[in-house]
């Protein structure tokens, strides 16, 4: 399932969209204002994980945050999702501070084997987000779940339990389930890190397709720099201790992206080299 449009020129709509994305002056959809997070270990020790994080995320943007393991990427994503509170600063969604998890945002946990509910079949997992909406009738719920599963090519597996699926299939179910909720923002925590290389490329392209189709805003964290460049409009690099968002790179590679053509473009290699210099593993003593 690699991108079917290898070498095809950009469609006018796509080009328009790319230009729109880079248009200055649009109000941000999500805005991280001086976000700080500290964890209290015991009475004497407090670890500051994130400090002075400022990022503005535009509507329909694909933004990736890269950083070494243990730098607090996951923590930042959970703060954006409203799952854990920031110690300082705030996250604004359409100008309003995020406190509880907002309906517009869906967070997909890193360990999909733990994020799918093992006691539910694939279909029942996909129906889950709609069960708390009284206005969605049972039949519509099933219908929407089935459509979403069909979109990721897993309708045949609807009656199976998660453990009966491969890692890549489980991740597709997690994506399908998230889409059922019709979010505007998708937060992905290293979503493709524990599958084999080929499956990872398939999932990356699936993610790009759904991002485009559903006009989503995606914030993804990863430690894989090439993945970040391949997927994103912009890449934010986290570094330092406590972590800060340093430079944010515009990824000016044309869309739709293609696993072969994009990754071998000279601009891709150039960006990769620049990012590698910024994202170095933390020294051992600085890790939590």
């Amino acid at each position, binding site marked *: 399932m690699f991108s079917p449009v290898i070498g095809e020129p950009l469609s006018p709509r796509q080009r328009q969209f790319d230009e729109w994305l880079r248009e200055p002056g649009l109000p941000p959809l999500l805005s991280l204002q001086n976000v700080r997070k500290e964890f209290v270990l015991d009475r004497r020790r407090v670890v500051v994980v994130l400090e002075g994080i400022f990022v503005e995320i535009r509507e329909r943007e694909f933004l990736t945050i890269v950083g070494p393991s243990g730098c607090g990427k996951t923590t930042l994503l*959970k703060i954006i*999702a409203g*799952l854990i509170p920031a110690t300082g600063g705030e996250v604004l969604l359409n100008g309003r501070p995020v406190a509880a*998890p907002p*309906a517009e*945002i*869906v*967070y997909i*946990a*890193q*360990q999909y084997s*733990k*994020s799918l*509910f*093992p*006691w*539910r*079949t694939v279909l029942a997992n996909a129906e*889950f*987000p709609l*069960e*708390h909406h009284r206005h969605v009738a049972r039949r519509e719920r099933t219908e929407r779940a089935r459509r979403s599963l069909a979109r990721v090519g897993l309708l045949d597996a609807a009656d199976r*339990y998660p*453990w009966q699926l491969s890692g890549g299939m489980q991740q597709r179910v997690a994506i399908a389930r998230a889409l059922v*909720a019709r979010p505007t923002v998708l937060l992905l925590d290293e979503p493709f890190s524990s599958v084999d290389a080929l499956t990872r490329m398939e999932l990356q392209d699936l993610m790009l397709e759904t991002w485009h189709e559903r006009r989503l805003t995606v914030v993804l964290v990863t430690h894989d720099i090439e993945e970040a460049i391949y997927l994103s409009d912009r890449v934010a690099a986290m570094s330092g201790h406590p972590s800060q968002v340093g430079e944010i790179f515009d990824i000016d590679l044309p869309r739709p992206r293609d696993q072969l053509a994009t990754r071998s473009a000279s601009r891709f290699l150039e960006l990769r080299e620049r990012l590698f210099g910024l994202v170095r593993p933390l020294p051992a003593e600085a890790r939590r």
Partner: protein
Amino acid sequence: MSAVGARGLGAGFLGILLALWEAAARMSGAKAALFPAPSMVAGTLATMIAEGHVFVPLAESMLRLGAGYVAGLALAVALGVAMGYSRALDNLFEPLVELLRPIPKAALVSPLMFFLGIGDLMKVTVVALGVFFPILINTILGVRSVEPEFLETARTFGIGTRSMLAKIVLPAASPQIFAGMHISLGMGFVLVIVAEMISADGGLGFAIVNAQRSFRVKEMYAWVVVLALTGYAMNALFMLLRGRILRWKRDSWVLEETAAQA
């Protein structure tokens, strides 16, 4: 070795032991009255069943066990979820639980008789107390070990607290709860029999004591056989139920498939 072969071996071994018992009893001569052969016990049991003596005591014991089990289960799961969920409630109840838990519940039959008499209420209470603790402990552990990813995922989809308990916490903790329920089933069975033996008020426990005191030895053994078969059937039923409810668990699938092959 195939599953069929393994079962055949076990059944064959059981047959050999029964044959040895039969032979030993027949050769024991005068002591045969205290040491009846399996064939004689089986004959007595058949007569007892035919004359309708077995059903009433069996039903009495099962009803008491059932009532106590359900009561203990409901209370233990409710308190276990609360203690697993809330640190404050755990701090409040933990010392009490740890003090009451080690008491062998059979020892409570005598004191409970003062309060509740020798009737059904006392026996049901003893069973409920015995059933309560293993399920409580396992429920607490099960609730505490729910993967945080489950909770985060549920929250990102906007689930409320009550739904969180019913739809995430209980199903996620259910394998552990079933482990406690399994232990409790055996414990409850022991306790209902002991309580009936002490209070001499019907049921299988009293039937055994009664047969013993009247020197109806074959009948006494027959009651023991009834207990063995009842316990076996209860366990089989429990495993079937557990397999149904935990169908989503990988290991229960494996078990079911093995059973289906056999």
